[in-house]
């Protein structure tokens, strides 16, 4: 029996809410001196080279999304990662972007 929230010190809510498609980029290399736990180190390694979504990080580390969010909150506080916020719905309707998506899907 695993108790996932022991990894987060019992916390279930990170300070900022990370959307599932928020993209995370790691800004530091994981070294033994880096004051992070093994789960946070795993998250940092995954997003060091390429931005990964919160959902992908959860899937790759096999951790519940809620746990990943709390751990990412700590990493963000420490400025070890940067997180891009998804485009707010009000800004979505740019026709060029949607046309690009349509063309991109057709070309797949």
């Amino acid at each position, binding site marked *: 029996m695993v108790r996932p929230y022991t990894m987060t010190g019992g916390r279930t809510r990170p300070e900022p809410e990370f959307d599932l498609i928020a993209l995370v*980029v790691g800004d530091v290399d994981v070294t033994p001196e880096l004051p992070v736990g093994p789960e946070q180190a795993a998250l940092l390694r995954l997003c060091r080279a390429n931005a990964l979504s919160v959902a992908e990080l959860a899937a790759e580390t096999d951790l519940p999304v809620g746990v990943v969010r709390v751990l990412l909150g700590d990493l963000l506080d420490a400025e070890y990662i940067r997180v891009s916020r998804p485009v707010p719905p009000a*800004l979505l309707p740019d026709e060029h972007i*949607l*046309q690009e998506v349509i063309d991109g899907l057709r070309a797949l």
Partner: protein
Amino acid sequence: MDSAPSEIPRLALKILVAGGFGVGKTTLVGAVSEIRPLRTEEQLTAAGRGVDDLGGVERKTTTTVAMDFGRITVRDGLAVYLFGTPGQDRFWFLWDELATGALGAVVLADTRRLTDCFPAVDFFERRDIPFVVAVNRFAGTRDFRPDEVSRALDLDAGTPVVRCDARQRASGKQVLVALVEHASTVHAARTPVDAVVGEAR
């Protein structure tokens, strides 16, 4: 702070894939995703309803809700993420989170169990989230015309109904194209043409 290792892709769009249990949501996501279908899990702890016979200790049950998801990179800096919504009604609060900021949704329907997609249709209609209904063709089912499905589901005029084979990548792509086209029309009608796209960072 200045030594950025890689640019963060600027735009990530979210599309939901909803529908009743066993209708092909996982299949559709897997067919069009460029990455192997991933599952992410949310663990929920709920206090058990009953009280144990022995000592009245409250039982806690942990439920795992799995969400399938996939990714399609349109170009550098523009990616579409697909999320299959959990089928069971009791996880609807997760739908709310998933639906926040979504570009639109695909409601997968099986004509043998059309009523299974009523909850999804209601959900997206109430929240004004653009969606298309994709009728997944199963072997041995009668082919319904889109207008028949539309009437049976009492869809708003303008909500597209398309037929698909969720196992086929080409077919899944067509469903997504239909959705983005529909979403594009809906959004264009809602907002002035000169809507500014902010410097999303």
